[in-house]
């Protein structure tokens, strides 16, 4: 605007206003027409398809042959009410998903932030370290799954321990051996234990069930997913730290703040928006996690110990051909992601305007 102030009177004189406007209008139409195919395609492939999935989730289409008889919320009821296989499985899915999400997001933040602060200390070979921490992001979840399945294959005492269990055995750390992603163990407050009894006594007995526990097998998924995504978290934090002006830190240093205090009172508070971004992005990846579990476990697990909603949806729909049931899981998954992403998108577009 300010760079060519002298040009304005010239153009106003030279170009008649009316023609200029009409040409602009015509070009506006052209621009919208060119954008239109993308708008229509995404409108159909995203929004109409979501509505369509929602419709299917209300029908009786639970075999290979399409059946659009309206059944109301029956498919949802089967997931949430009673103790049928679908309900048990879905409750376990949610349990696994919550455990995975918390540990994965938390782990990535701790490691990612630590790596970012380490790399921020004027490190020799910073570029090399950064490249090493970030390379897993370039790799398919399927490759990650295949590699970690091999590393975490438990083996057994008869045919020989494998992977990390083998390492533990060689190091004399036998007590650390475990079934990894094949472990059927679920940690929860058993009703017989003190806490379990307490929960039962105060009318919260439902908390003392495997529905509200942690499936140990999910730890393996956390490790593999964390291996892949913590470098990404580091990159986001490092970019955030680097965008904090040096003067701010210098000022704190002059005031006698220690490095720790600078982090505690200057850097971490300023990184709050980055942390919010990290949490939203990682949590939405955690909710959508599918490929990794599929390739690590082959999509099956004893007692659904590594089943998650995205995997359940796919298996229910395309293996068991229960399309309406699968659609209902898909809609719940969408709602979970939407609750996270929609406020985030609004926040991002709002903050862009300012």
């Amino acid at each position, binding site marked *: 605007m300010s760079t060519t102030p002298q040009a304005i009177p010239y153009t106003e004189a030279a170009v008649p206003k009316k023609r200029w406007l009409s040409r602009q209008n015509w070009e506006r139409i052209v621009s919208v027409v060119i954008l239109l195919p993308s708008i229509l395609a995404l409108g159909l492939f995203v929004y109409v398809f979501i509505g369509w999935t929602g419709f299917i989730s209300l029908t009786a289409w639970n075999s290979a042959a399409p059946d659009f008889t309206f059944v109301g919320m029956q498919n949802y009821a089967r997931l949430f009410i009673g103790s049928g296989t679908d309900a048990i499985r879905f409750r376990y899915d949610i349990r696994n998903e919550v455990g995975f999400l918390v540990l994965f997001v938390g782990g990535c933040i701790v490691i990612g932030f630590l790596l970012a602060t380490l790399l921020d200390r004027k490190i020799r070979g910073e570029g090399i370290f950064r490249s090493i921490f970030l390379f897993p992001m370039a790799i398919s979840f399927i490759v990650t799954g*295949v590699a970690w399945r091999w590393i975490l294959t438990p083996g057994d005492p008869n045919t020989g321990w494998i992977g990390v269990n083998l390492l533990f055995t060689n190091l004399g750390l036998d007590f650390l051996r475990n079934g990894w992603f094949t472990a059927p163990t679920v940690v929860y407050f058993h009703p017989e234990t003190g806490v379990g009894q307490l929960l039962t006594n105060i009318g919260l007995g439902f908390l003392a069930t495997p529905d509200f526990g942690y499936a140990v097998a999910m730890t393996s998924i956390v490790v593999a997913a964390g291996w892949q995504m913590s470098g990404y978290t580091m990159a986001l934090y490092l970019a955030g730290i680097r965008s904090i002006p040096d003067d701010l830190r210098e000022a704190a240093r002059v005031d006698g703040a220690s490095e720790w205090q600078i982090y505690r009172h200057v850097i971490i508070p300023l990184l709050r928006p980055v942390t919010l*971004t990290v949490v939203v992005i990682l949590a939405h990846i955690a909710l959508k996690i599918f490929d990794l579990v599929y390739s690590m476990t082959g999509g099956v697990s004893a007692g659904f110990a590594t089943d998650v909603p995205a995997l359940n949806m796919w298996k229910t729909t395309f293996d068991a051909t229960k399309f309406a049931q699968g659609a209902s899981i898909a809609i719940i998954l969408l709602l979970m992601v939407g609750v996270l992403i929609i406020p985030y998108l609004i926040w991002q577009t709002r903050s862009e305007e300012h």
Partner: protein
Amino acid sequence: MAAVVPTRHRFSFHWTRIVIYALLIFFALWFLMPVYVLLMASLKSQAEALQIQNMWLPPRIIGFKSFLTAWFGSNEPPATLGLEQGFWNSVSLVIPATILSTLIGSINGYILSKWKFRGADLIFTLMLFGMFLPYQSILIPLVVSYQTFTNWTGIQLFSTIPGLVVAHVIYGIPICTLIFRNYYAQLPTEMVEAARIDGANFFSIYRRILLPLSQPAFVVVLIWQFTSIWNDFLFGVTLANTPKVYPITVSLNNIAGSFHVPYNVQMAAALLTALPPLLVYVFLGRYFIRGLMAGSLKG
């Protein structure tokens, strides 16, 4: 003060430096560990690979036979398929899908940054949701509409390379548009205004002014799309139902999921699958990371 502090400072300086480097090296080894395991396994012969107690040790004799088996498959019963077909399937779907989605993203980004109409920001936000959407919530209609399309037109989309290309292009539009829009938005609008006053129209502004400046954005988007389409599994496993169409990730998953395939071959297959995006990462990592950061919107 200046006389006292340096000695203490230097001492603690050294001590913390050692801890910092030790931690960094520890994490570097941790990140590289799976690569080590994959390499050690795949460089072993089958006989050596069978000695599982040595799985963490390097091979006594380095061989590349497992890579050949991973690539070509094995005719020894039970016969297993290799990666070869999947590799070429992925190549032939990644190239058109990457180019198409990048071009669409570029023109969309131009319009949404330099030709903002009323509601443009809303349209853009609605587009962006397509990037975070769990694809499970559109998969059933996608499969059904592919079949409906075939019934209407006779053109096969389900379980064909073009069908996969269509899905990748459409669901790739949001991220491509986002990167280009943000890139063009930071180019001064005065430049566009000035060109318009000089008589340039919608197309010539794009071709003569923005396009020559867009090279970095094109590299970022091309690399991003190449990597994410190459690494995709969900569309591949849902929209393809024959080895003739399986993308490489599905081929790899089948190889690794088979009990008949020895693990040195499985690991070789995993390395071969990871190789193209890794090469891109090694040579063009800077641009890959830029795409990565754009995926979180503003970061």
